[in-house]
């Protein structure tokens, strides 16, 4: 029982990371109309940059700070150079993100990957505390805290700032938003800037737990897709609920049944959700006109 509870606690922490990546996916989907396959690898690549700086003798925190600035710039570049030019249709944009997914993995292999995988130093303290026989790791608790802070920040942005309100407007009715003077491209640029920073954060939290290598984000990207679908692909808040469901379930499955079934179980949860609720737990139906 103690083991199961510990697994659930670490599953929740992992689930919040998944939820955060899922949140980025949905946020970008809502503002730019496309599910971005490359967000995971964007985080991976940025984490490599921080790693290189650290390896060259810089402190970990300064390196992470510089990495965050680079990530913002990187996010802007991704939108302005890869996704925006000669604006294609939805399918074309999707394929662009897939091409970017390939490109970033290849770039990481060429520039940083000679001796991968690497051990990545943790920003968070090790160890933990026991509460009622259940081990709570500091890193997990801090992860939960970080995610809560970020969620609060986003909620505040959507509720109290003009830019946040415009994000919601574009997500609901892109055309009407433009009629109200909302500069959608500027918003998309901001969205990618934020997405770049969040992706780095995920990379920094994830890399110490597993190892740092060019394919490190593939599993969590899949989990994040599953979480987004479970939460309902149009619901920003639902992504975190979906993330926790996927995180806990896959943690339990890999502990008790074997790690070769984790992805399969996430897929099964996703398909089951779709079978019961085609729009996910919190999603709304998309109305189409003839």
């Amino acid at each position, binding site marked *: 029982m103690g083991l199961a509870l510990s697994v659930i606690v670490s599953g929740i922490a992992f689930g919040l990371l998944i939820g955060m990546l899922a949140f980025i996916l949905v946020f970008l989907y809502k503002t730019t109309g496309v599910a971005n396959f490359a967000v995971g690898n964007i985080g991976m690549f940025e984490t490599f940059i921080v790693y290189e700086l650290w390896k060259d003798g810089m402190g970990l925190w300064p390196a992470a700070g510089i990495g965050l600035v680079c990530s913002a710039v990187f996010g802007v570049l991704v939108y302005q150079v890869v996704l925006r030019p000669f604006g294609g249709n939805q399918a074309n944009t999707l394929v662009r993100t897939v091409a970017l997914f390939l490109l970033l993995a290849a770039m990481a292999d060429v520039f940083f990957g000679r001796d991968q995988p690497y051990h990545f130093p943790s920003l968070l303290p090790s160890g933990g505390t026991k509460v009622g026989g259940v081990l709570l790791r500091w890193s997990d608790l801090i992860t939960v805290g970080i995610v809560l802070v970020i969620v609060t920040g986003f909620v505040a942005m959507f509720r109290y700032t*003009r830019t946040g*309100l*415009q994000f*919601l*407007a574009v997500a*609901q*009715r892109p*055309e*009407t*938003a*433009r*009629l*109200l*003077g*909302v*500069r*959608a491209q500027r918003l998309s640029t901001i969205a990618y800037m934020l997405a770049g920073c969040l992706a780095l954060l995920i990379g920094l939290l994830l890399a110490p737990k597993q190892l740092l290598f060019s394919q490190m984000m593939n599993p969590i990207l899949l989990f994040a897709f599953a979480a987004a679908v479970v939460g309902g692909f149009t619901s920003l808040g639902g992504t975190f609920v979906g993330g926790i469901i996927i995180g806990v379930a896959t943690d339990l499955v890999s502990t008790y049944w074997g790690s070769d079934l984790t992805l399969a179980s996430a897929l099964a949860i996703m398909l089951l959700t779709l079978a019961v609720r085609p729009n996910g737990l919190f999603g709304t139906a998309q109305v189409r006109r003839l």
Partner: protein
Amino acid sequence: MTAVSQEGTRREQAGAGLSIEDLHVRFSGARVLDGLSLAVAPGEIVGLAGRNGAGKTTTLRAVSGLAARSRGVISLDGVPLPARPEAVARAGVAHVPEGRGIFADLTVEENIRLGIVRKVPAERTLRGALEEAFPAVVRLRDQKAGRLSGGEQQMVALFRGLIGSPRVLLVDEMSLGLSPRALRTAIEALAALGRAHGIGVLVVDQNSRMLHEHCDRVHLLGDGRVRLWEDASDIASAYFE
């Protein structure tokens, strides 16, 4: 300059307000608009009638830059309007689109905040006038806009269109889903506000009687052009040909 100059309008100087000249729009080869010319002076309320598919909505969309024009000049106070919708909005053209474009998941107040497109010093005074004209909107301020009735949503859309003190307001399908009484209230408020604050209003509708009753003049759109519709009783020639 345009077909309407004969009218004794409130135009203070040549070129003030919205002016559309020789507008052409095509959709996959079909001529939707074919040399349409129309002007709306500050403080004037102009109606545009025509049967379904005549191109009324397209006219408004072309002004806002949502529909690409193949020829023609659209200018505001003598300055040509850009082709991007967000830039048109910032230049001072507000547009209540077909179906009203209400953000159902946002509150009424949030919807209205989105209408403040540019910094305008007169904003406070117009808000006061609007709150007087549409008291229901004030009462519903914290409701989710999606829960409002069609008539209430129309009020919110008009409120949102005017709050940013535009030079010109375009209203598409004013009467859609409104009861005759709600419609009358809405358009009377609209006309009064436009006149009081020098905002030109262009209303598009199928309901030509309403337009004739409340507008300074009504134009009929047919075959991609407009002509002035002077005799309100001459319905037969307008629709039944």
